[in-house]
């Protein structure tokens, strides 16, 4: 893979803390995601990866610390505002709109980027019809982009597991994000599906979207990520290229257990 120098910060977290009662899930985490890269976020179970995702996407509010996205403070923003800022996400335990078709799921993803409201719908104005038509076409395009082109009319809850994961990505892309946050997209996938996913992720970045990736499949992380951030017990443990991380003694100790 060609090494790209990523120098413009897109997402900057500084000393984020999040406590749940007596449990400190995030303990002063600072890290940066640079524009155009695939940044891996790894760590043992319970390291605080998903909590960090929830803080970034506004589902949790950090107790302290700052979060800058493209220079704007977003640590007090509501989830819907985060989406408008340009961060879209997928979920570790798939959260599709189960009664809706694949196409409709992706169409919902456009919500933040569309305007038509109640009156437009009731009076069926030209602007509304055009917007609907455009959303429909773009959504179909996104399904094809994610390899689900012929599943448009399938109800989301009836799709095979791997397709559901890719549908979540398509839905997130519909929000036209600058940062795509993926929470274990390869979980439960077989080798073939993971390969397809890897190609998709590379294509998404080549189209200019930055990716923040939580993943337990280490070979996938090491293959696609430009940089990797390691969390352990709510703390930032290390950051660097996949090669550096693999050799980092602290990371090895965190994963395999330290003898000290």
């Amino acid at each position: 893979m060609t090494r790209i120098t990523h120098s413009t910060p897109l997402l900057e977290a500084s000393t984020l803390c999040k406590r749940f009662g007596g449990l400190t899930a995030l303990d002063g985490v600072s890290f940066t995601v640079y524009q155009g890269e695939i940044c891996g976020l790894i760590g043992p179970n319970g390291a605080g990866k998903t909590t960090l995702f929830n803080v970034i996407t506004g589902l949790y509010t950090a107790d302290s610390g700052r979060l800058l996205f493209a220079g704007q403070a977003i640590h007090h923003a509501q989830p819907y505002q985060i989406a408008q800022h340009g961060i879209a996400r997928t979920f570790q335990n798939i959260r599709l709109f189960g009664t809706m078709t694949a196409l409709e799921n992706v169409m919902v993803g456009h919500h933040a980027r569309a305007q038509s409201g109640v009156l437009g719908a009731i009076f069926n104005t030209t602007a509304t019809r055009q917007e609907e038509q455009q959303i429909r076409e773009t959504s179909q395009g996104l399904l094809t982009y994610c390899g689900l082109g012929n599943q448009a009319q399938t109800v989301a809850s009836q799709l095979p597991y791997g397709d559901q994961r890719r549908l979540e990505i398509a839905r997130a892309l519909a929000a036209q994000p600058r940062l795509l946050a993926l929470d274990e997209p390869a979980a439960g996938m077989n080798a073939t599906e993971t390969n397809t996913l890897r190609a998709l992720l590379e294509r998404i970045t080549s189209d200019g979207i930055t990716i923040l990736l939580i993943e337990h499949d280490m070979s996938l992380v090491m293959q696609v990520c430009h940089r990797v951030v390691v969390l352990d017990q709510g703390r930032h443990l290390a950051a660097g290229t996949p090669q550096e991380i693999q050799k980092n003694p602290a990371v090895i100790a965190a994963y395999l257990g330290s003898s000290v």
Partner: protein
Amino acid sequence: MTGLRYASWSRQLLIISALIVAPFAIEMLLGRSWLRITDVALLYVMLALGLNIVVGFAGLLDLGYIAFFAVGAYSYALLASPQLAIHAPVLVIIPVGAALAALFGIALGAPTLRLRGDYLAIVTLGFGEIIRVLLNNLNRPINITNGPQGITRIDPLHISQFSFGHSHSLGGITFTPLHQYYLIFLAFVLITILISVRLEHSRIGRAWRAIRDDELAAQAMGIHTRNLKLLAFAMGASFGGVAGCLFASFQGFISPESFQLIDSVMILCMVVLGGIGHIGGVILGALLLTILPETLRYIGPLQQQIFGTVYIDPADLRMLLFGLALVLMMLLRPRGLWPKRQLTGQLTNRGG
């Protein structure tokens, strides 16, 4: 053209002309009382469609929906009766009734935004009761609602000189008030259906369904869940408010007794029995649950004829059969009599 998905223009024209002729057929074949029942059934169709926006589209369980019907009815009654000595024009009252009901919808929605399912049901149930108790007691110290006695001598619907309370003839056909109310209710029902269909297949309707399916994911997709839930409450309530205005003008008399918990439950049953979230099913549910109980009225005289005495009071029988019907429904058709098919319908690409 979403409104025309199911039928071509000619088929729609045929259906509409059949609907216009229907009241004459009903009156001729079944008698005047059945025409009255049909009029009331149309009001219930409006109510059920309004509740369907809240419960069916947005997935918010509302057990106090009759309160919005009450707000609309009292808006009309107070603005068009000797009670406050106001006789405002209908074209003012109906929008006021709809807007007031929408405001009450927001007043109910705002404190309950974080609640779902059972908890939301309990609060909305309480809200419905609060409105009824208020209406019952707002006769002291200043008499506004006239308390349990209710408001009488409410003006019939009238547009300038044309009053729906008097008979009119046109081309040799006499339109009685019941005919005229039928036609105006039908017009309102058709508008309600059109609005429901268009909302369902719009960006707003999609966002409501997203909230219903998974609120957290909906938020993450940029949906302002608070505003959209309030919108659902307000839209549903305003349908109820308009239906309430029409009801008050139709009856000429209203009292808090017409707006009880059991009425909220009945409307919810219409939605659930017909097919929650499916406009056709909801209409079917509303029609069945208004018309079927009325047929039981014949059971009393029938028993008298056959056995010489009335063994089962038709009123008891009504609740018994109603309960039985609900249990059977849950066992045999849990998604309603006419549920929405998931794979067809809304996805045919028409593109306007």
